[in-house]
């Protein structure tokens, strides 16, 4: 390619125009590649089993039916129970809401202390807490299973809520601490001189500007906890399983005729809440992802 000056000259040579076409083609092919699994899920979930056996992955359903969705929600057999995934879906909801609220509120308070009320050793403490973002959770599974048993909350939603709060705290604290660090210390110092106390400063100065970081933290925690499988499969049983565990059991069941349309409908149902959050607040989702991942 010969010398090119930027932007203005871009389309002026045939070569540049060609490059442009290639770039758009590749980007669109990539978009199709990312969308195809979703498309396959939706198409399959709308087919009948007969249709699935005679057609192929992306053949259009001969008759569109919601039967698979009804079965996935209300009557598919998971384990010995044939009540669909609705119960497990609500388990996830009942688990996610308290876990997200408590871990976010505690994270906000911790982040506030770590950024605006530092004391001797608080930086050290923060670094130690950060380890919680990185450990592979396999390393705490056995002790946690034993502890939950001793506390009498093994295989219960309460137990899962506690586990998610404990291991979410490192992330939420990190989010809020890094956000509050950017608030000028002078604001807080002035308020202290005016006699405002710990809670008043938080309430009047920091909380009003915290909306974005609350959104980031809530979205991050919600997706993490909703999508969790490891804690769910290790610490829940029978009636307390979250939807990811139920979906895995449904997909991997080896008894009876395999109903792929029901599997796909169930998978979409399990994925819809986080997908909606992503579509509604993608910007904040990405912010949490990079903050949470680069540092954790």
């Amino acid at each position, binding site marked *: 390619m010969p010398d090119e000056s930027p932007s203005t000259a871009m389309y002026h040579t045939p070569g540049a125009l060609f490059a442009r076409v290639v770039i758009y083609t590749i980007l669109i092919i990539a978009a199709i590649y990312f969308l195809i699994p979703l498309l396959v899920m939706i198409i399959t979930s709308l087919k009948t089993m007969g249709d699935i056996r005679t057609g192929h992955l992306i053949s259009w359903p001969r008759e569109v039916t919601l039967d698979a969705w009804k079965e996935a929600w209300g009557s598919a057999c998971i384990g010995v129970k044939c009540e669909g995934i609705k119960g497990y879906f609500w388990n996830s909801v009942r688990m996610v809401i308290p876990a997200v609220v408590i871990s976010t509120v505690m994270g906000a308070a911790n982040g506030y202390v770590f950024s605006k009320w530092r004391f001797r050793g608080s930086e050290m403490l923060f670094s130690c807490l950060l380890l919680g973002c990185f450990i592979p959770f*396999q390393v705490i599974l056995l002790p946690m299973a034993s502890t939950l048993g001793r506390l009498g909350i093994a295989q219960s939603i309460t137990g899962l809520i506690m586990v998610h709060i404990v291991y979410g705290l490192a992330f939420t604290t990190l989010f809020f601490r890094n956000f509050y660090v950017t608030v000028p210390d002078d604001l807080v110092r002035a308020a202290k001189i*005016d006699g405002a106390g710990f809670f008043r400063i938080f309430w009047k100065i920091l909380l009003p500007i915290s909306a974005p970081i609350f959104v980031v933290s809530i979205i991050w925690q919600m997706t993490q906890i909703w999508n969790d499988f490891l804690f769910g499969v290790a610490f829940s049983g029978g009636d307390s399983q979250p939807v990811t565990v139920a979906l895995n059991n449904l*997909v991997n069941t080896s008894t009876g005729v395999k109903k792929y349309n029901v599997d796909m409908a169930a998978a979409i149902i399990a994925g819809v809440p986080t997908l909606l959050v992503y579509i509604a607040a993608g910007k904040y989702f990405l912010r949490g992802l990079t903050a949470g991942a680069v540092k954790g």
Partner: protein
Amino acid sequence: MADLSLSHPKGFFDYLEDAIPKLVLAPTFLAALVFIYGFILWTAWISMTQSALLPNYRISAGYRITTKALTKMKNEGVSENVLTKLRILEKHERTDKKSKFLRDVKKQIGAEQLRIYQDVILTHSYSHDLFIATCIALGLILAIFLDQRIRAEGALRTIYLYPMALSFIVTGAAWKWILNPDLGLERLVRNLGFAEFNFDWLVNSDMAIYTVVIAAVWQSTGFVMALFLAGLRGIDEAIIKAAQVDGASLPRIYLRIIIPSLRPAFLSTVIILSHIAIKSFDLVMVLTRGGPGYSSDLPATFMYAFAFNRGRLGFGASSAMMMFFAVMAIIIPYLYSELRKTRYA
């Protein structure tokens, strides 16, 4: 407010005021101390105290080896070689307390389990490298192309990144269906006219691990793209302009200037992807359950199977500790350099 602070009673309330931040942190501090540090030590302790060999089969001295135990071991892949020796042992009424024979057999079983674990680690390291290399290559290409003043960039970005919002169980279920050996991709390609096309990776022990890689790459590429795109947007345009004035071609500018200056983005991407790969559990569980055999087992699934399904706590705990050390070996140097950077920058 100012005059109030003057009449503020000194003493007890001042102590309280000082203590509030610490009191606020106390629950988190305790939780971290117990549930992170305490539990890691606890796992380390389990890994060293519980018999890593055969806590379940009771072939320690003085116990009889039952036929049931032997069948169970056979199902778990203990080799014929060892089983034959154990059958000899079974014929004795009670095993001799200080039997050298017994010690040898136990050693051999331990060695076999270790060999399986080594296979698992090997599987992991191959798939790990393949996963990271593919994600970086695809993510970088997408990021560079997206950075060319593309119309509808926002929409494309949203599409590339949506898999990250989904659970691996959800996307794994989709891939399991797409890769279905009979009705999935195989059927589709055959319908396109390639009647001989075979695709059985999901149930083929040589290829099963690659189905995991395919699904994992699909899920993570958008995220890698986002990291690189952020890096590209951070590059000073003046440097690029200067190179253009000097007559450098666009590919040359990318190869010599832009990609080298993405070094920090490369580093964090590799770290994040390694971290994801070492912990990967969900996707394997839903796609292959580690099978056929042990062929697609990764450390996380291996640990879970041994600790929770087979009751071999010691072995499970020690593989968890190995995962922990692997992650720490990657993360601690990285964190250290990151923290230094923020302190001195």
